[in-house]
């Protein structure tokens, strides 16, 4: 999912939208920018969207898998995420000291000193994308026709913002295909089309654009140029707080052999597997719906409610 789209120079409209959500008790503030609790009504929208994407995934015959919101560090390294977005990832650190180090830890906490430097990296990092754990499942030879997974869960990206559509911890729902170059592109294209239609049916004004991810630093300059030129990743955008700067609420991304190579995945005929994913930013879709139809789902248009709660 792209992360820069929808980012305002002054964030005024985003701040107003957020204030309305907080006042209505839909978003519960935590004291950290971009980190929220959610009301029961919000959670019901999230669950309805998950179920809707789940119905599509079941129709496709996808295998549903579930993973925690942390990923093995080894898997994360192989995803090459650090090359593109080192500034967005989050690493889990733990205490491995002895009694003496524990005393020091408590002294530092009590005096307000830096205690984090006493921690060490754990075997896990926070999930940056839902799909990452499925690639190690595919290592080896794929069956004819490849594999198709449905996976959803919490993701973390460190980008504090007043924009409620840019949460640090958020819910992503993906349908991932691993197969041949042709089948990966086909999954991306069909998924994009279906996703745009599904979200359009919920009363959202959808458009599709080439993704413009916020690749990091000087290497990012080349990555960004390549992404636009190759048009491997497309996004479904909808206006939330701004018509000029619509927000990406879904993406359809062909990775080529980006995961097939490091995870040693082969197609049935022995060549390097390609993959693609169709990802729904569930929180962003929920927020777009709240913005479009109002903060009380019970009063949303009957047609929209029927699709979400059939």
């Amino acid at each position, binding site marked *: 999912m792209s992360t820069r789209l929808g980012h305002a120079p002054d964030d005024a409209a985003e701040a107003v939208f957020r204030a309305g959500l907080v006042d209505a008790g839909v978003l519960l503030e935590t004291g950290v920018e971009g980190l929220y609790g959610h009301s029961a009504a919000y959670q019901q929208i999230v669950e309805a969207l998950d179920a809707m994407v789940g119905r599509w995934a079941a129709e496709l015959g996808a295998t549903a898998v579930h993973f925690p919101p942390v990923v093995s560090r080894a898997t994360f390294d192989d995803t090459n995420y650090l090359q593109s977005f080192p500034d967005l990832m989050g690493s889990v650190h733990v205490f491995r000291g002895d009694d003496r180090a524990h005393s020091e830890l408590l002294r530092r906490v009590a005096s307000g000193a830096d205690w984090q430097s006493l921690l060490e990296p754990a075997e896990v990092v926070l999930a940056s994308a839902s799909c990452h754990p499925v690639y190690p499942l595919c290592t080896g030879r794929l069956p004819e026709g490849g594999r198709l997974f449905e996976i959803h869960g919490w993701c973390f990206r460190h980008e504090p913002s007043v924009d409620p559509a840019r949460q640090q911890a958020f819910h992503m729902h993906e349908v991932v295909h691993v197969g041949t170059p042709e089948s990966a592109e086909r999954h991306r294209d069909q998924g994009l089309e279906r996703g745009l239609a599904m979200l359009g049916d919920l009363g959202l004004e959808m458009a599709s654009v080439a993704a413009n991810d916020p690749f990091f630093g*000087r290497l990012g300059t*080349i990555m960004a140029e*390549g992404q636009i*030129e190759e048009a491997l990743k497309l996004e479904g955008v909808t206006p939330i707080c701004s018509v000029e700067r619509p927000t990406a609420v879904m993406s359809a991304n062909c990775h*080529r052999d980006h995961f097939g190579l490091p995870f040693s995945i082969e197609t049935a005929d022995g060549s390097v597997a390609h993959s693609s994913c169709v990802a729904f930013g569930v929180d962003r879709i929920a927020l777009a719906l709240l913005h479009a139809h109002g903060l009380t789902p019970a009063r949303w248009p009957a047609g929209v409610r029927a699709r979400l709660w059939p």
Partner: protein
Amino acid sequence: MDDEIRRVLREHGKLPCQVETLDEDADLFEAGLTSHASVNVMLALEEAFDVEFPEPMLRKSTFESIGAIRHALTTLTAAGVPS
């Protein structure tokens, strides 16, 4: 210089073809160089030739062929750009 460029491409370009068979004007992206791999090639070239590509050179076109890479490196080493 060309041997070293080809070594870097062999080790970091993840090209689906033999680097030795590539003509110096052959389009590396058409030959299968991805954006991700081109970034690794760039970093390896910087290390191998002790240079740093400045902002205006951070374009795919800088790395589009062995000849283009040689031209960029020649410009940088002639200018004595420090790493």
